[in-house]
């Protein structure tokens, strides 16, 4: 079981880091911009699909990742335009984009729901032995690069303006910045990060599946909130780091009932009971932590 616990931690770390870009992207839209952007599943799958097509076309890995981010940022910008120019309500704007993107994705994949890459992905190139440890290093490298880029974004005047827009919209107007333009830019950035996450999943799985983003929004938000619950960050970069930690912890909770740590329990429970137990596992620590600690509110958002 000690073995299993170690395996669980390694698995949670790997999958948590793999899905961390989703949480980081959601942090930008839900926290920085204070915008309930539900484009997540759509931008992740369009990023994944574009990445897959670029890999199949023989493009280098970094181009496929950038292409995915670009395609997803267009999706995010579309959500913002739908809200600010066409007047679609905030929550609906993301849902609409996701719906549109589903059909586009299937078109791009030639009507097939599941396709396998025949060319080598970044994991095949950097991890020739195909060892689990090296996978972890590759994913960690990508997430560290992403965190670095976000660090510079948050320091820049663009990042600060986005925070101003999320906190008090009218102040954004008074400092002479257009809220509409910055909303479009902000959602484009947030969805580019999410699209990058989708692309990473394709590189890791060597396949794209239209169903693979199902439930991504929920797990991403879970990672975000868990990270904030266990440690109330007082700066944006610590907040980003906690998003990554939260994503890993969420995956540890999901995997907790998958390893055979108790044979009697394994025998008693139906395979489908895992999610119920995961839910319980997530409730208890949050209740304990929130009871004994005052949460510091870094952002004005209340999602």
């Amino acid at each position: 079981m000690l073995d299993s616990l170690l395996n669980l931690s390694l698995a949670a770390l790997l999958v948590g880091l793999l899905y961390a870009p989703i949480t980081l992207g959601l942090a930008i839209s839900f926290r920085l911009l204070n915008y309930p952007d539900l484009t997540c599943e759509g931008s992740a799958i369009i990023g994944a699909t574009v990445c897959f097509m670029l890999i199949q076309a023989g493009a280098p890995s970094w181009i496929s990742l950038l292409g995915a981010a670009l395609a997803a940022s267009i999706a995010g910008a579309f959500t913002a335009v739908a809200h600010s120019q066409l007047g679609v309500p905030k929550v609906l704007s993301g849902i609409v984009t996701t719906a549109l993107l589903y059909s586009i994705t299937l078109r791009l994949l030639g009507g097939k729901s599941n396709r396998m890459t025949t060319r080598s992905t970044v994991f095949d190139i950097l991890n020739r032995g195909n060892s689990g440890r090296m996978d972890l290093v590759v994913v960690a490298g990508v997430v560290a690069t992403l965190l670095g880029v976000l660090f510079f974004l948050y320091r820049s005047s663009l990042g600060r303006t986005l925070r101003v827009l999320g906190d008090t919209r009218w102040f954004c107007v008074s400092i002479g910045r257009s809220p509409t333009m910055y909303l479009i830019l902000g959602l484009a950035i947030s969805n580019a990060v999410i699209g990058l996450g989708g692309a990473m999943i394709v590189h890791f799985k060597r396949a794209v599946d239209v169903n693979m983003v199902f439930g991504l929004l929920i797990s991403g938000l879970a990672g975000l909130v868990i990270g904030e619950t266990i440690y109330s960050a007082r700066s944006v970069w610590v907040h980003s780091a906690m998003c990554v930690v939260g994503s890993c912890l969420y995956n540890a909770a999901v995997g907790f009932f998958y390893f055979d740590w108790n044979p009697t329990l394994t025998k008693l429970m139906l395979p489908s009971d895992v999610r119920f137990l995961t839910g319980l596992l997530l409730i208890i620590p949050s209740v304990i932590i929130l009871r004994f600690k005052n949460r510091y509110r870094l952002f004005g958002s209340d999602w």
Partner: protein
Amino acid sequence: MNRRLLHNLFFAAVGVILIALVYDAVTRRQASTRILIFQDKPQEWADALKLGFEAGLRDSPEGHNVTLITKSAAADPQAATTLAQIIGKEHYALVYALGTQASQEVFRVVKDKPVIFGAVTDPVAAGFYEASLNSPKGEITGTQDIWPYSAQFDLMLRLVPQLKQLGILYNSSEINSQVSVGLIEKECSKRGISLLPRTVTEPSQISLAVAGLLQSGIQAFFIPADNTAQGNAQVIIAACLRAKIPVFTGISGIVENGALGTVGTNYVELGRVNARQAIEILKGMPASKVPVASAASGDLYLNRSTAEKLGIQLPEELLKRATNVYR
């Protein structure tokens, strides 16, 4: 935090670690009899596969002392990835994955244990084989949920004994149809039936193609695993019924809509085939040497009102054996 709490926590931790060490040693020793079933979401056909697999193992002496452990990702794709990572590191004699997605998820991670896949339509396209089913990329084998063509041809010859020319129609741009048509060709040449294939590229050409086939004197028509032909089954069935030519296919839904009959895939049976492969592997055969198989028999579906229109008498024995007789 007070001292007493720390004290208790310390003893609890020591206890957990001790139990852990014992448990790990036990599972490592039992690994040779533990089989993991990996399911990515609850689905009817997957449950049927599992049922057949369990029954198949219980029926054989080698499968008696096997412990079956089922793990399900409960329809969460992200949890499936985590689960596959954990499975890759635990001790099992072999891993049985239900369906294409679950199998892909497991095969990428599990390198030191044999993998059996259940109900994968095209294992080559799924990435388990290099170019053909003879060159596996690892210790893997399993079952395909392709139609039981042999049983379907038996049914056709039973109901249309004078069958000499069989007409089929498919879309030349669909890759999966070519697999299906290839298997039909093989069955035809085995039984001395000449196959008259017609290819179309869009639905509007179907009526013309069917009319052409009926002109050339076919005794029966078969709708293969082709999306264009299946999507326009009504057009084909109507034209053939007018000419009193029976239509056969592989899907019960098309039989319900007027095709004469079919033998469809039975997933419990497919699970039993998987169990036989598992036993071969438990006996010590490498998984890459166990051939990929598909179910030999299936569920029988017939349509009584179509039979009456065609003037074909459905044998009593078939009606009794049928899973469903549509009216």
